[in-house]
């Protein structure tokens, strides 16, 4: 069936892209790659050559090396942010679903509240408390991930609590906490995994945005977002510098999106495409 084929293609392409991303990050940390932080103004703005596969930037740094190192920042921040978001958000969502009452109200209101704050405002305000840098980016994006995961966990968990086997578990003597861990959590795990892939993609975008405005990782750590910022004024002279990091970001996010879509189709057969 044509759709199943597309699903398989999506899964494979997505996995390849992500695999490539991780590979780049790992290799970037190895000694084989040119150190991109080496500034060598004399060789600035060179076109791609054998020595510099993607050329050099306005400070003579190796563009390819910069891109590969940028993968480290992007992945690192995205993973940490998802870790914070899911680690705190999922238990909160589970708790909110388990019982009606004030706890649920508080958690849901707080989530709505954080959503209402434009994410960048949070980052800006955090920047003032934490300063720029990788930590700031991780925390800012992580804080914004918490309500996302709380909401998704709540939405997935809530219908489960109304099912009869939860009542049967209670009659067997299990308390709310045990039921949440033993029954509910494994059942919402697939949806959570899908959300993780989505948020990883969004996290990379967010990190790029923060670095672009100067709130992300600080120099000399390379970051795709900051590279785009620096390339902006040079766009007429060396469009390559503006294209390469952007394409890197796009491919990385696209890979996660494909992965997430393919996973969600396999998990929830109701969402599979119906025939025309």
């Amino acid at each position, binding site marked *: 069936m044509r759709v199943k084929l597309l699903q398989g293609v999506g899964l494979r392409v997505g996995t390849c892209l992500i695999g490539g991303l991780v590979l780049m990050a790992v290799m970037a940390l190895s000694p084989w790659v040119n150190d991109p932080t080496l500034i060598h103004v004399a060789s600035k703005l060179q076109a791609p050559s054998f020595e510099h596969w993607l050329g050099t930037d306005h400070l003579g740094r190796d563009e390819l090396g910069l891109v590969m190192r940028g993968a480290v920042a992007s992945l690192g921040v995205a993973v940490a942010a998802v870790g914070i978001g899911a680690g705190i958000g999922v238990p909160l969502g589970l708790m909110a679903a388990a019982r009606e009452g004030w706890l649920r109200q508080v958690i849901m209101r707080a989530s709505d509240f954080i959503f209402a704050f434009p994410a960048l405002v949070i980052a800006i305000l955090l920047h003032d408390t934490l300063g720029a840098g990788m930590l700031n980016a991780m925390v800012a994006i992580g804080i914004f991930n918490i309500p996302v995961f709380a909401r998704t966990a709540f939405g997935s968990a809530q219908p489960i609590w109304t099912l*009869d*086997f939860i*009542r*049967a578990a209670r*009659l067997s*003597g299990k308390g709310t906490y045990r039921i949440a861990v033993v029954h509910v959590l*494994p*059942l919402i795990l697939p949806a959570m995994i899908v959300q993780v892939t989505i948020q990883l993609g969004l996290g990379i975008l967010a990190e790029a945005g923060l670095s672009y405005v100067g709130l992300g990782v600080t120099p000399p750590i390379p970051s795709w977002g900051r590279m785009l910022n620096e390339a902006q004024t040079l766009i007429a002279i060396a469009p390559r510098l503006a294209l390469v990091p952007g394409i890197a970001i796009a491919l990385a996010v696209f890979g996660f999106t494909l992965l997430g879509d393919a996973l969600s189709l396999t998990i929830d057969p109701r969402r599979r495409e119906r025939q025309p």
Partner: protein
Amino acid sequence: MLMDVHALCLALNETPLLKGVDLSLKSGSILGLVGASGSGKSLTALSLLVLPPLGSKLSGTIQLNGRSLLTLGDAELCGIRGSAIGMVFQESASSFDPLRTVGDHVTESIRWHLGLGREAARIKARQALKRAEFPADIDAFKRYPHEVSGGQRQRAMIAAALVLSPQLLLADEPTTALDVTTQASILTLFRRLANEDKMAILIVSHDLPAIATIADEVALMEKGTIVERSATSQMSAERTPKLAALFASARPRGSSAQFSGGDAVLRVSGICHAYSSKPSLNDVSFTLRKGECLGVVGQSGSGKSTLARIVAGLSKSSTGNIEGPKGTGRVQMVFQDPLGSFNPRWTLGQSIAEPLRTSRRDEVENALRDVGLDPSFAHQYPHEVSGGQAQRAAIARALIAKPDLLVLDEAVSALDVAVRGQVLDLLDSLRVRYGLAMLFITHDLGVARSVANRLLVLHEGSVVEEGVASEVLSNPRNPHTQALVAASPSLNDKFFAPERSAD
């Protein structure tokens, strides 16, 4: 002959769903189409409207007044649907557009087919609503689907179907989700429509006794074809053995071995419960003894399920006293939906072992054998087994820790009629064997008669009658009980005699 159907076939992606259905429908007469789930009954009804599922192919002939429907184009078919043929679906709020008022659904076909203005259409709609016995004191044009009851919605749907005076009315499980008394009155409405308006009516249902009360003819479907048919006034076990068997399994058996006293397991007194200021239980008291099965019956909304949950300890009552089995796991429950009773990712074996502190494989296997299932079922997943098998597994789970009290909340209502009898027999034998006390909640008086020793009748939260089951059902004293008994088709022995003389 209003409609003639020959060799109707429906195939979806090479899989045949209907394999040659023949039937004919006469003006003024009602045909009941029965069969197990998956037999193709609903698909047949939809096919008569030429509305098969997306991507499937219909073949064969459908003649309506001599016109062959399967050769008509889209526009002509749209002209026929809703005006010459009307359809009523199984009640569920989802058959109504939640954004439109109930009345709007009735005016929709008027305006579509006749192009009338709003006021003119509403006049016609109100007439149809009246014909369908929609309550006159409710303004259908100001109410939305979620604001009216199931029975009222169903009447509105019937009104929408007959507003243009169709010659043929198709009804797919029209009363399955309704109360017994509402079901009886809607079935009577269908009979009136057939008699007075000379409509041909096709009713699809899995509930044979209910249909048999009003149908002129019944047909049994199995795996996509009609295997037996008979006029209801001339049913005989020889000519239509499967239909007869279906009747027999729906027939209330006498309740089992007389129950002869035992220690009280459960004493309930003065239970009151209110849910957001609406009282749902009002001073309910009763005693349940070891080895006894107490049936709790009543319409939906009478508080039966609330009572079940309170007795099981899942909810707290506002006031009142319960003296029951102490300790975790002493009270167990079997629920209505066999599939929802199990964690879909656990094997049946894991679920059955849940009430035990330490699970041992032999205990699970014994429990399975007790309920008539092979021990290999322990490795199956809930979605891999049939409804009846899943419910047996639910019983196994409930009994594995040897509880003192078993609460069953509509435990057989979701099962096919043919399977119900087997499960009820199983429960009976388990009760006698282990001396279980059982609290059996059901809205179906026939089921209650088969399984209960004593009966408690609830109406709007209060106990209105109590006594030995067979006596309460044969001589109900309270008017509410009387209404319930009168409306229950499965108590009606009219069709159960194997030899029948023409009436």
